């Protein structure tokens, strides 16, 4: 069937508007990349648009030499890898029993957990608990209070429940134990969902800001988010720079942009591979709430 005139107009407009929306998501990134790769004079004069002007790696050089970005990068990596592993482990430990029909009082436990999604103690009481446990200024304060996201746990539980019953029964007859069932059948069958939740937890830890600012006092332990935020807020951008000619060549925008690029690259590196999974994960979450 041929499109009517009205439909042609509709489809054309649709393509144009969607392209504009997508451009709005790409252009700021291109602008930041261009700023980070441009010469100081061009940045100062505001001549940098979407393409580097007077290409130079000076912003990156001063970022790596003059700021503790490398250390905070590895701090972020440590926080993210260990945090994600811990969160995934405990979320599985919560979701798997709750997905088993024979588990005692699974309804009660589910209700008790969902309740904490709609009512919570808030910042100060949580801070006092963390302080009482002696976790202040250690990464334990970042990992433990947010160990399980109830929302992610519910997604995982319903995904486990939706696995075909026959596989479960077959494994039973073959004498599979409860833990064997989890490790040999349930987890391998749930790989896409596990990848999704690992991405969600990982991005959360990578971007963690407020918790680091609240619980970590030692600047050596700062992650990139807090370091970059401090760089943006403070006027003295680069510390301990001995060479005065380097300082005169510096632009705050250039160094900030370089820092932002360093923060984005790891996310952009894993994002395309996990994209097809997380769409499923979000959809699963939407169905069972």
């Amino acid at each position, binding site marked *: 069937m041929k499109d009517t005139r*009205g*439909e042609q107009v*509709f*489809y054309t407009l*649709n*393509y144009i508007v*969607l*392209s504009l*929306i*997508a451009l709005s*998501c*790409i252009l*700021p990134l291109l*602008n*930041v990349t261009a*700023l980070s790769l441009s010469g100081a004079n061009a*940045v100062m004069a*505001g001549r940098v*648009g979407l393409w580097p002007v007077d290409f130079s790696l000076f912003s990156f050089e001063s970022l790596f030499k003059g700021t503790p970005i490398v250390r905070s990068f590895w701090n972020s990596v440590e926080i993210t890898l260990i945090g994600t592993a811990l969160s995934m482990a*405990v979320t599985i*430990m*919560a979701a*798997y*029993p709750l997905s088993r029909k024979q*588990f005692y009082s699974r309804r009660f*436990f589910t209700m*008790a*957990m969902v309740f*904490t999604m*709609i*009512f*919570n*103690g*808030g*910042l*100060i*009481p*949580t801070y*006092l*608990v963390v302080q009482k446990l002696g976790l202040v200024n250690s990464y334990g304060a970042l990992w*433990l*209070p947010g*160990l*399980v996201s109830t929302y992610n746990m519910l997604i995982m539980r319903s995904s486990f429940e939706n696995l075909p019953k026959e596989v479960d029964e077959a494994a039973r007859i073959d004498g599979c134990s409860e833990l064997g069932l989890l490790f040999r059948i349930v987890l391998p069958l749930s790989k896409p969902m596990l990848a999704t939740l690992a991405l969600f937890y990982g991005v959360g830890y990578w*971007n963690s800001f407020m918790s680091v600012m*609240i619980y970590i006092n030692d600047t050596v332990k700062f992650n990139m988010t807090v370091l970059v935020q401090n760089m*943006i807020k403070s006027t003295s951008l680069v510390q301990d720079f001995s060479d005065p000619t380097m300082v005169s060549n510096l632009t705050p*925008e250039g160094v900030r*942009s370089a820092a*932002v690029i360093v*923060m*984005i690259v790891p*996310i952009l590196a894993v*994002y395309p591979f996990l*994209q097809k999974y997380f*769409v499923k994960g979000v*959809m699963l979450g*939407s*169905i069972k*709430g």
Partner: protein
Amino acid sequence: MKAARTVRGPVFRPGDKVAKHRTRQQALRRFKSNIPLLIMFVPVILFYVIFRYAPIGGLVLAFKDYNFYDGVLNSPWVGFQHFQTLFQDSRTLEIIRNTVGLSLLSVVFGFPIPIILAIMLNEVRNMGFKRTIQTIVYMPHFLSWVIIAMMVTTVFSMEHGIVNNLVEKIYGEPFAFMYSKGSWIAIFVGSGIWKDMGFNAIIFLAALTTIDPSLYEAAGMDGASKLRQIWHVTIPGIRPTIILLLILSMGRVMEVGFDQVYMLQNSNVNQIADVISTYIYRTGLQGAQFSLTTAMGLFESLVAFLLIFSANYIARKFNEGLW
């Protein structure tokens, strides 16, 4: 069928000795398979008790005068004194107003956009184009507010931001977008929408796949234009999802993300940009006024709780409730 029946063994009647034996065996088996599950579950219980329920217990601080030496349990009770202080102070009232105002604006303007985006994506017939657009618009959701705030301030910067370059060409002088109240609110709401519109559209896209394509054909036969088809077929088709998500977002009206406000804030717009979470951080943690800010936190949690309950109550009238 017959063969299957013989394999299943004898039929047990109630009161049968064998049957009793069997149920006890079942109970035992259930218990046995519960042991590893329960052991596995112990850390989970500990986590929820320590980090979710203990802080809820810690809310008693709102009715006490906390001091470091007596601790949470032994500090003296003061009743509703902190609440009185909060609701008599014009500054805290302003902060509550800002919180509700900013998030209501975010809901009102931000809620329809993912729906529109999902409907537009759904109408794209070129799958490659659709996938490319989706990959791009989901991405900002995964960037931290530090990055987005930095981009926003770069784009709207007074000296050489792209937007102000244009404004300068037209009006002769730049405009202080980040420092004027009206434009700050617009940028705040807009950046929130921009970050999450793609990601929030996923759920609506999922709902759209469940609509029967024959409905569109029938509507097309009857001469309905594309926009009329969207109005009479698409939107009713995803109505349950829309209502469900509206409830959830109403429940979050008391919650403006800390990161977004904190990073976009500046002293010029503090009067409208200070919200409960930044207030609790500054006055509570940095100013060590634990009891007063716990009272503020309790007020926030209670209102959020009531909002979710009443939104759900209304939704149940449409048979779309969460519980």
